[in-house]
């Protein structure tokens, strides 16, 4: 009982601390933490980036240092520019966001700039992703998701419950696919085993994803016109649902930072939900499919 009281006390103190700190400082600090944890893949630049970010976290003055944010932007843009063809999408998002932070600290209205750009970045990213899916015939007719359900072991739960495939068949598909990939020179082709139910499920799931991503994209671009935060909760559900199955924590983290940045200063509840989400994202490392299906 005492332990529960103590935990409750600590959480309340933390909440007070978070709510009393200027929002822009929190956003910049979260960005620095993100850069330390998920920064760059190149070793030498990652070390220099981490050292700079750690120094900046140590004092408020350094957190908003204009010149240090320029240095961060130069490092990130040059490394990502060099490996533009191989870096993941969250690395691009990280680059855009560091540029926004740099522009923001060079101006007086730091929070307003972060707020405005975060909303547009979420909107554009989701709209472009939706457009691309609509353009791709493989996605539009369900082929892409059907194939993904059959060959990606992170999607085992979908193939089992959504597609009605037996576990033995699911594993046989992984084996056939692995056989094809391991020596494509001698194997001209392979067959996978699917069901009609999985085909229908793939099409429904494809359209559902399109609908949700498109809705988030458009609503964030138009968000200025709306007063309620209904769309934020759809965005949060999207992050939770997606990153349980695809635990790319870096991407979830940067989406949460963008989410926090576009929350009004007077909306403390929504702000705390995003903060909690960043912490909860860590549990996506638990292999849920293995726990459920063995």
């Amino acid at each position: 009982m005492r332990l529960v009281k103590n935990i409750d006390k600590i959480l309340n103190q933390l909440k007070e601390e978070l709510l009393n700190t200027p929002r822009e400082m929190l956003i910049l600090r979260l960005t620095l933490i993100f850069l330390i944890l998920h920064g760059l893949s190149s070793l030498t630049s990652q070390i220099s980036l981490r050292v700079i970010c750690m120094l900046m976290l140590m004092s408020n003055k350094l957190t908003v240092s204009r010149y240090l944010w320029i240095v961060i932007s130069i490092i990130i843009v040059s490394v990502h520019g060099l490996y533009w063809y191989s870096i993941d999408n969250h690395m691009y998002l990280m680059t855009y966001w560091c540029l926004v932070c740099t522009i923001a600290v060079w101006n007086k209205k730091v929070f307003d700039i972060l707020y405005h750009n975060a909303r547009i970045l979420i909107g554009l990213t989701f709209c472009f992703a939706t457009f691309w899916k609509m353009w791709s015939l493989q996605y539009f007719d369900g082929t892409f998701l059907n194939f993904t359900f059959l060959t990606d072991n992170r999607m085992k739960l979908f193939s089992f419950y959504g597609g009605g495939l037996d576990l033995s068949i699911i594993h046989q598909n992984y084996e056939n696919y692995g056989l094809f990939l391991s020596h494509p020179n001698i194997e001209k082709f392979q067959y996978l085993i699917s069901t009609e139910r999985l085909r229908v499920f793939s099409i429904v799931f494809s359209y559902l994803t399109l609908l949700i991503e498109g809705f988030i994209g458009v609503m964030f671009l138009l968000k200025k016109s709306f007063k309620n935060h209904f769309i934020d909760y759809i965005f949060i559900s999207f992050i939770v649902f997606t990153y349980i199955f695809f635990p790319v924590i870096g991407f979830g983290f940067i989406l949460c930072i963008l989410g926090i940045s576009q929350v009004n200063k007077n909306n403390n509840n929504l702000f705390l939900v995003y903060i909690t989400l960043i912490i909860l994202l860590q549990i996506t490392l638990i292999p849920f499919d293995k726990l459920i299906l063995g």
Partner: protein
Amino acid sequence: MNLNLNKKTWFEIKFLVPLIVVIIFVIQFLLANVSTLSPWKGGGFGMFSSISERMIKGVGITIDGDTLDLSINIKNTNCSKNLPVDFIDKLILYPKNKDLKKLAECLSCERFVKINAQHPKKLNYTKYALSKKYINTEDYIVFKEIILEVRELVYERETNKVYSKKINSTVKALCD
């Protein structure tokens, strides 16, 4: 939240980064649709939109005319010092004929050794690989010609068939 800004900073603050996003989207979309860039890369907007599993298929032609499968690797080749570390990755994600030709030339006249592998399905297969630990062996082969192509996986939903198709031209390099 209103941004009351003077005209000098208005564009920079409101639209500079979004404009960069739009430009990168346009470039990525063009390169992926007109050229050979993987839709998953170069901006990331095309992730989870299409199947983009790629591989480099390579064969070596012996002096006797036999065609043997190759395992592609540039580590420890004489030309590897002149090529970037991620050369193979770039070739798969954004294949260009001139780079593929460079790879074929890099592998030509190199010493290959036979490796046997066994798949869990008990299917034995043989490939010819280049590796430092084999360099000193006497039992090596130098191919008369190296033929390479970059292939992409195709899945037919109606038949559930998985196969690969060529992305760009087949490239050859002779060992003189």
